[in-house]
C-alpha cells in the first residue's frame, strides 16, 4: 500500500470515529443557538473529504510506490522508540513515589543505555550528573516544586 493510500485510510478512520463522537456531544438549550456540535461536524467533514480525495487520487495515480514502515529493516529504531515511550510513561507514574532524583536517574540510565550502548561508566556519570544538576537548578535555585519521594527525609534541601 502506498503512503498516500495509508494516509487516506487513516484520515477516513479518524474522521469517522470523530464524527461518531460528535453525535454523542450533549446539546443544551441555552442561549448558544449554534451549539457545540456544529464546529466538530465541519472538522469531521474536512478530514473525511481530504482522506477520501487522497484515496481516489492514489487509485488514479499511474505510479504507485509501496510504502513500508520499516518495522523489520529498522527494528532497532522502532525498539528504541517503543522503549522510550514505555519508560517515559513509567517515569511519570513512579515520579511522585520514588522522587525526582531517583526516578530521573533511573530514566536517564535506561535511556542512555539504550542509545549510548555499552558505555556503562559514561552512562552512569551522565545520568547521575543530569539528575543532580537538574534537581539543584530547578528545585533548589529556582525553587520549583519537585517530589522528594524516598529521599524526602535525607535530602538537606
Amino acid at each position, binding site marked *: 500500500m*502506498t*503512503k*498516500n493510500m*495509508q*494516509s487516506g485510510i*487513516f484520515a477516513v478512520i*479518524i*474522521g469517522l470515529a*470523530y464524527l461518531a*463522537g460528535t453525535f454523542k*456531544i*450533549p*446539546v*443544551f438549550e441555552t442561549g*448558544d*443557538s*449554534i451549539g*457545540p456540535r*456544529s*464546529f*466538530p461536524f465541519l*472538522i*469531521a467533514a*474536512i*478530514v473525511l473529504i*481530504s482522506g477520501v*480525495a*487522497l484515496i481516489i*487520487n492514489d487509485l488514479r*495515480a499511474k505510479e504507485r*510506490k509501496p*510504502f513500508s514502515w520499516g518495522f523489520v529493516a*529498522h527494528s*532497532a*529504531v522502532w525498539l*528504541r*522508540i517503543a522503549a*522510550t*515511550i514505555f519508560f*517515559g*510513561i513509567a*517515569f*511519570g*507514574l513512579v*515520579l511522585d513515589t520514588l522522587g525526582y532524583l531517583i526516578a*530521573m536517574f533511573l*530514566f*536517564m540510565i535506561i*535511556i542512555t543505555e539504550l*542509545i*549510548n*550502548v555499552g558505555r556503562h561508566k*559514561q552512562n552512569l556519570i*551522565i545520568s547521575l550528573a*543530569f539528575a543532580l544538576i*537538574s534537581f539543584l537548578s*530547578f528545585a533548589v535555585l*529556582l525553587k*520549583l*516544586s519537585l517530589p522528594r519521594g524516598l529521599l524526602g527525609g535525607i535530602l538537606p534541601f
Partner: protein
Amino acid sequence: MDTVFHNLMLGFDVALTPVNIMWVFIGGLLGTVIGMLPGLGPATGVAVLIPVTYGMNPTTALITMCAVYYGAMFGGSRASIMINTPGDASAIVTCFDGYPMAKKGKAGEALAISAWASFVGGMAGMVFLIFLTAPVAAMALKFGPAEKFSLMLFALTATITLSEGSILKGFIAMGLGLMMATIGLDGQSGASRFVFVEDLQDGIDFLVIMIGFYAVTEVFKNFSDIDQQYSVDAKSIGSVSMSKEAWRRSFMPWLRGSPLGFLVGVLPGAGGTIATFLSYAVEKSASKKPEEFGHGAVEGLAGPESANNACSCGALVPLLTLGIPGSGTAAVMLGALMMLGVRPGPVLFEQHPEVAWGVIASMLVGNIVLLAINLPLAIPLVQLLKIPQRIMLPLVLGMGFMGTYFLNYSSFDFILVSVSALGGYMLGKLSIPIPPLVLALILGGMTEQSYRNALQISNGSISIFYEKPISLAFLIMAVISLVYALKRHGKIVKV
C-alpha cells in the same frame, strides 16, 4: 514616530535590567549551542528550554525564549559551514556555499560572514518589526468575530499551502489539530466533548504536545543516526573575521535578503527555509558570476543568512500583534507564554506595553550579544559539534520529559507527550506536515469561538463572513494561498 520612540524607550527600561541582560546572554548561548547541533532546530531549543523560564516573570521568560530562538538561528549555520550538516532546515542553504568556503580553508571567514549576516538581518528585521507591530496591533483591536475567524482561516490555509508536501495531507493535519483542540469542556455551552478519560476534562495542554512533537519526535528521527560523530579541526578554521572583499560582496545581499526574509516570516507557516531558498535564488540571479554559487560564493552565504534572521523577526509580528504564531518556534513560545498567563495579541500592546516593547528592545540587545558570542567564541563553540549524537539525544529526552512534568505536575501528561511524539514520528513518515496540525491545535479554540460568535450575531447566516470588508479580504487571501499552492504543486497530491 514619537510614540514608537517613547515605546522603545519604555522597552529599553525593561530590557536593560541586569537580570534581563543576563538571561539574554544565557538564552542566546544555550540557543546557539542547541541550534548548532545537527537535527535540532530553534523549535526544539525553545521546547526543551521552557523549564528554564519557570519561576520567571512573563517579560523575562519571553525575553529568554526570544534569546534562545535568536541564538538557535545564529547557531544553526555553524554546523552547515563546518560539517556540511544543517542544524535545521533553514540552515540547509548555508551548506551550499558555507561548506565549500570551509573546504577552501576559509571556515573562519565563512563563520564571520554568517554571524555578521545574521546580525544585520536581525537588526533590519527588528526595525521593520518596531514600525509594523503598533499599527497592526491597533488595526487588530477593531476586529470582530467574523474578521477573527477569517484571519485564522487564512493563517491555517497559508500554513497548509506553504508547508512542504501535499495540500490534502495539510488539510488532514489541520483537521487533526482542530480535533485535538475540541477535546474537553465546551467553553460556551459547558458540554463535555470527546472526554474519554477524566484528565482530558480541561482539554489538551498544547505545550505538552509541542514538547512531544518538537523535542521527543526529533530525537526519534535521530535514532537511526546515533553513531554519527563529526570531526572538527580547530586549527584549519583560521581567523574568524571578514576580509574587505567579503564586506564589499556581502553588502547588497544583506540589503536584499533582510526585507525579503522579513516579508516571508510574516506569512504564517512560510518560515526560514522558504526565506533562505528565495534569497539564494535572488542572489544567484543578481550575480554577475552565478557559476561561483555552490563553490563558496560570499553572496550565497550572506544573503540567505540575513534573510533567515530577518524571517525570525517577521514571524514575531503575527505572534505579538495577532496572537497567531508564524512558525513552529513561535508556536512553542506562544504556548509557554499562555502558561505564564500572557496572551500575545493586540491587547498585549495596550494592556502590557512593557512586556511587548521590553521583548522588542531585548531582541535588539540580544542581537548585539549574539554577535559578541558568535565571533570570539566561534572556535570553542564549534568544538561542541564533536559531541556525538548518542550523548546529546538522551540529554534532550531528559530535558523534554522534565519539562513535561513542570507543565501541570501530572503523570497523565507523560502519556500525552509519549503518544504525541510517536504520532509526530508516524505522521512524518506518512509525509503529513506537522505545522498545520500545531497551528490548528493552538488556534482551534479561538477559531471555533469566533465562528460561533459571528454566526450568533448574524442569526446563523454565513453572509457575515463575506459582507464585512476585512473579513472578505482575509477570505480572498485564503483562496489566493490555495490557488498559489495548486499552481506550485501542479497537483494536489504529492508523495
